[in-house]
């Protein structure tokens, strides 16, 4: 469909465990992004990538790391999950400046 998929769609995990979310695209877009959405905060940028192995931090990057070893995959890892990381995580892709984003379907993560 839109050429971007996120997995898993839902996950419940325990505090202190590592968690990895996957974003996969088939559009060959250079730019990929991870956002989290929380009530009252809108969407906030966690990390982004502008190419294979090229990543940078966003507004709320503490406690998160990312990797991009292939153009099509962008992984978000919560190194040691905390309850404050309970959120909906969206991946987005872009062709570049002026094109806006295409979003994935989101991953609802609950940390208990």
């Amino acid at each position, binding site marked *: 469909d839109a050429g971007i998929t996120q997995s898993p769609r839902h996950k419940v995990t325990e505090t202190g465990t590592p968690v990895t979310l996957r974003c996969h695209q088939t559009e060959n877009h250079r*730019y990929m*992004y991870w*956002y989290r959405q929380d009530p009252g*905060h809108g969407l906030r940028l966690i990390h982004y990538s502008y190419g294979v192995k090229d990543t940078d931090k966003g507004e709320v990057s503490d406690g998160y790391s990312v990797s991009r070893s292939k153009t099509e995959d962008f992984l978000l890892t919560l190194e040691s999950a905390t309850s404050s990381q309970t959120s909906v995580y969206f991946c987005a892709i872009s062709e570049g*400046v*002026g094109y*806006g984003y*295409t979003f994935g*379907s*989101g991953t609802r993560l609950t940390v208990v």
Partner: protein
Amino acid sequence: ELKVEQNPLFLSMQEGKNYTIYCNYSTTSDRLYWYRQDPGKSLESLFVLLSNGAVKQEGRLMASLDTKARLSTLHITAAVHDLSATYFCAVDMNSGYSTLTFGKGTMLLVSP
């Protein structure tokens, strides 16, 4: 730091009425985007505004951008129930990597 403010954050209106959602931002940018999100769903792109004075229209929605005032508006004409959703504006941070800062969203409820 770029700040994006939307108002109102919640809007309840009757079918057939007109209304405007406002999006103010704090630093210079000439790239602004509007997205729609239905409950429990992902975000879909509505409008891409890339210059001062840009105006885009789709059905009952019209978006405009005034970069001098750092203001975008989303005007709703003769609202219908199907327009009920949350609307986000997002502003390019001018990072060169198409990173966007989102407003908190306006939840629109259109009732008969």
